[in-house]
């Protein structure tokens, strides 16, 4: 299993799979397969894939701990970057076709419509994470600070789900499904955190420097 996870080809395969949703969108776009309202179709598809990639990224840590596959972390950055990639497509479609590239129009929308506010927040929060996803930035920030910064993905994922929930008119099954998945993944972290806190007897007066390991959170 570990040899599969460390193989360069696995990484290539995961990378290509992550591009499949975009490939299908492009193919259907050129063959008229996006239905009667292509802009809405693209907005919904790229929004869905953003939440899905956020969920997959957030699933890496629980899965690697539960299945004892620490090497899975090698894929976390790529998956997170794909979440950012799809949210960029999502946001650009909105900015170009709904706002006709008007930044003032977009800003009015962000300030006035709460589901846009949250969607925008989720998008903006991911940008610094994408920028600081490199090894250089991890070194520069230090493991502890880098980890703290990258916990912003929790806020982003929750914002994304509420953004979706506030958009639908009456059938809330799909946003609730995503809320359940994201909630489960964050709930698992909460339980782990509570468990660790209970195990630690009392706050140490002088905190010794912990070795900064980037691959845990």
């Amino acid at each position, binding site marked *: 299993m570990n040899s599969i996870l460390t193989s360069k080809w696995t990484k290539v395969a995961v990378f290509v799979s992550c591009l499949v949703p975009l490939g299908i969108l492009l193919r259907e776009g050129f063959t008229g397969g996006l239905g*009667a*309202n292509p802009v809405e179709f693209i907005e919904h598809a790229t929004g869905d894939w953003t939440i899905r990639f956020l969920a997959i990224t957030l699933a890496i840590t629980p899965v690697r701990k539960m299945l004892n596959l620490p090497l899975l972390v090698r894929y976390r950055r790529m998956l997170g970057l794909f979440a950012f990639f799809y949210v960029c497509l999502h946001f650009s479609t909105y900015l170009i076709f709904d706002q006709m590239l008007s930044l003032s129009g977009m800003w009015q929308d962000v300030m006035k419509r709460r589901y846009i506010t949250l969607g925008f927040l989720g998008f903006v929060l991911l940008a610094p994470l994408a920028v600081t996803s490199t090894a250089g930035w991890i070194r520069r920030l230090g493991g502890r600070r880098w980890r703290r910064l990258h916990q912003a993905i929790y806020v982003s994922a929750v914002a994304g789900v509420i953004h979706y929930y506030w958009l639908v008119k*009456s059938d809330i099954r799909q946003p609730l499904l995503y809320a359940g998945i994201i909630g489960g993944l964050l709930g698992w972290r909460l339980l782990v955190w509570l468990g660790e806190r209970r195990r630690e007897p009392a706050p140490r007066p002088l905190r010794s420097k912990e070795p900064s390991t980037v691959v845990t959170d």
Partner: protein
Amino acid sequence: MLFKRSPDLKYSDVTPRDVYLNRRKFLYGLGIAGGAALAGKRLADMISPATQVLASSKLDGVVKGKFNTDEKVTPIQSVTTYNNYYEFGTEKEDPSRNSKKFVTSPWAVAVEGEVKKPRTFTMDEILKLAPLEERIYRHRCVEAWSIVVPWVGFSFSVLANLVEPTPNAHFVAFQSYFDIKQEPWGRYAGIQLPYVEGLRMDEAMHPLALLGVGMYGETLPNQDGAPVRMVIPWKYGFKSIKSLVKIRFVKDQPPTTWNMMQANEYGFFSNVNPTVDHPRWSQAKERRLGELFKRPTLMFNGYADQVASLYNGMNLKKYY
């Protein structure tokens, strides 16, 4: 041009009906990547027959009606695959998929309440109440998309006058067909069914208010509200109730489905109004299906000259 067609060329001849199947393939692709459960559902769609069976048949003796817009008619393919009809599912493409077996014959519409001559009309009787007119109307959904549809029907007032409403009839309440066996998707609609709608008496009697029995020269497809529906072109689409089974003339303002669901978002009047936003999104613009960018929304959906006088002296921000 669609309107200068030869008499035996139907709208449905203009656009192939199976083009939209490409979209299913896309959804199927999403299913593969997204999860096995979804993929299973999409797979069922994939292996279903490629040709869509529509029960629509040509309507004879249709004359050109008044109030036609000369804007470009939306392709029938869009109007039959992009629907809000929550009894058949809440995704836009659900109604075209799920309504194929919907039974619309025999059909009857009960007309009752504050009328001197309550009666039930069979579908055959309705089709013979008045000459069928083609009326090309703009149709603006509350979700900020719009279409232009050549409806077939006649003014609702024709039917109303036949039953002779009493002076107590101040409103008209409409009810859609609902049968959980035929429309099991309604369980997940998130709105109370059967769907109910209502109009003030003067709105219902306005000549623009259409009792629709067809579109594009043919009977209504199931997903568009077969076999008989209302079309109120100056109001948001959800006011134009589909698959009508009951009409009740009443004294007091009747409850309406979306208003019951969320009163601050969907008012009783729900006139198209670019200056009054939906609490969650702007109504200033709309996307005409077939166009990429949005266009400005017109007051009363462009029918202000005909209907604005119905609302003289009314605060349209309060009575949205």
